[in-house]
């Protein structure tokens, strides 16, 4: 349920959040148009669960991740962490929030200072927040590296000497250094190879159990999201179009876009060559000042006049299954 009641029960609640980026304009002149990166999104993330945010590039999933961490200023709406609005925090509360909510980057390596050794990189959050120093700091860092499956000796290495998978593990070690409760993982595995990817995914799942973490997992790979996430939110050009528990989304696809997205994924089974079946044509439209109506309408095979005029609101069509579509659609294609 997405309502006032659920704000108290959930760890993170997003209510009607909007983020518009101005295009053009300057110091004096006003921006002429706006990129509607995230437009009126509401959802809840409960403790210990994983919300997978899926969509094509430019759908606003990264902006969404930054908004819930308060790394961007919102345009409108509220975001609650443990029932409190993070955009109304005072300075001290905001600093405390930084220890409780962390980010894992897509390319950890570029977020490291390449002149620092691994030990310093992982230990930095502990120093910044005055948690540990001296020998204790070193022990904590060694422990963190062990937690993510690395040798503590790596502390004295520089980042460039590490393999891609190890770098990503160091990134994870740093983000769990302050015992956070909520982690936003922004495409943490999309730059990794298959064999390393499996290790990384196992690590994320193990950490979730041992540290009781809540994840917001942002990815374009629906196969990975399905494996890791308890809930899935599907976004299209800034809008949340479908949101439910993972098995529910796979069993009942209520939005035509979800259907198109899921059937576009190649299946690892040569006996089922399904790309021959109906696929989505056209391209993702520009999020700059989008026209009224459903944003998916120009590519949708069900679209009628109403879809081009009115914007469908998110509604609960099945228990716990939210969808923003006027049509009574349910996906039939077989997906494994």
């Amino acid at each position: 349920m997405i309502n006032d009641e659920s704000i108290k029960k959930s760890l993170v609640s997003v209510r009607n959040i909007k983020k518009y980026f101005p295009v053009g304009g300057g110091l004096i002149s006003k921006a002429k148009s706006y990129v509607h990166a995230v437009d009126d999104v509401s959802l809840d993330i409960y403790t210990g669960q994983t919300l997978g945010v899926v969509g094509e590039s430019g759908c606003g999933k990264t902006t969404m991740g930054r908004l819930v961490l308060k790394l961007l200023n919102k345009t409108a709406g509220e975001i609650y962490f443990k029932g409190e609005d993070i955009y109304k925090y005072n300075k001290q509360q905001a600093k405390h929030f930084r220890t409780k909510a962390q980010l894992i980057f897509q390319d950890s390596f570029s977020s490291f200072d390449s002149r620092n050794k691994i030990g310093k990189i992982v230990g930095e959050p502990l120093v910044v927040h005055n948690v540990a120093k001296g020998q204790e700091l070193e022990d904590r860092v060694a422990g963190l590296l062990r937690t993510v499956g690395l040798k503590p000796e790596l502390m004295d290495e520089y980042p460039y000497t590490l393999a891609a998978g190890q770098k990503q593990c160091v990134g994870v070690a740093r983000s769990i250094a302050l015992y956070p409760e909520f982690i936003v993982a922004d495409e943490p595995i999309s730059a990794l190879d298959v064999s390393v990817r499996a290790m990384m995914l196992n690590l994320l799942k193990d950490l979730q159990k041992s540290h009781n973490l809540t994840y917001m997992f942002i990815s374009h790979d629906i196969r990975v999201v399905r494996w890791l996430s308890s809930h899935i939110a599907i976004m299209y050009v800034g809008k949340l179009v479908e949101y439910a528990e993972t098995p529910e989304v796979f069993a009942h696809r209520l939005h035509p876009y979800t259907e198109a997205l899921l059937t576009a994924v190649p299946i690892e089974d040569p006996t089922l060559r399904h790309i021959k079946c109906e696929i989505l044509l056209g391209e993702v439209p520009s999020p700059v000042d989008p026209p009224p109506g459903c944003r998916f309408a120009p590519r949708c095979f069900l679209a009628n006049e109403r879809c081009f005029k009115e914007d469908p609101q998110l509604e609960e069509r099945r228990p716990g299954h939210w969808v923003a579509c006027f049509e009574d659609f349910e996906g039939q294609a077989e997906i494994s």
Partner: protein
Amino acid sequence: MVEAAQDILKVNGLSTSFLLREGEIKAVDNVSFSLKKGEVLALVGESGSGKTVACLSLLRLIRWPPGKIKSGEVILDGQNLFDIPLKDMHKIRGLGIAMILQEPMSSLNPSIIIGRQIQEAVELNQGLSGEEAKKKAIEMLELVRIPSPEKRYYNYPHQLSGGMKQRIMIAMALSCKPKVLIADEPTKSLDVTIQAQILRLMQALRNDIDTTILFVTSDLGIVAEMADRVAIMYAGQVIEICDVFKLFTNPAHPYTKGIMKSIMALKTGERLNIISGDPPNLMALPTGCTFHPRCDYCQEKCRTEVPQYDDISGEGTHMVRCHFPLGVDKTQAEGKGK
């Protein structure tokens, strides 16, 4: 499988190295494979396994220094490409073998209209000129399903989306009707829905104009979708070649098996299978079998002896580079090895 079809491209013992101050990097090491007419062979491997270098070696696009094709032969339609003087290679590139690169954005000239760029390839390779070449270029745009091709002819690359640019690359590559088309991860930077469009287009083109494709990818979903046969690369070597159905049911190399297991578990939600250790450092490759430090089935022999290419099917359809291929009786395999 068509018995009579002959090998249009045959690669034998291809080795390409990069000679650096720090030492030699064997990017491609004794790679052999062949392609029949009309077939799609997928070349699969992780980053750094030598897929792209192998493809560039086929076209002799390795720059010296530091890269060097050390040995091997590439036989295209009965002609060894390594016997041709380098200055005549341009006749092979495009007409014999054409290549679609990973990033269309960096391969197109941003200051020339796309129609002109396709036309250039047509003029150089087919000797057409003027209106005729332009007509051909528009025809190619139509072939890759670009809407209103007459208008799009005058577009610059920045006016097109990523998926469209990749279509232009495909149009350019196909404009000369190459005997073999190399597609080097053509959908890597594209979204799934656009990827599906491109894959579908390539399937259709393959059926319509009977192109032979060497499809480089690291996504086994795409392999299942597109390929007839698959070659798996690891640390510069092809470690297994078999048809796509065999790959998904009975992989014989422990590395292939490991990757398959971790992918299949994604669907069931089970804990993912891990291939322990890191991808090999090409500067300091392990002795014996290059995969042995990460292999669950590793034995003494694997540490010391380099495994040979073994035919475990007995018909030349399933080749494995492993001392102890899975699902094969060891004594039987030894007997065949001799």
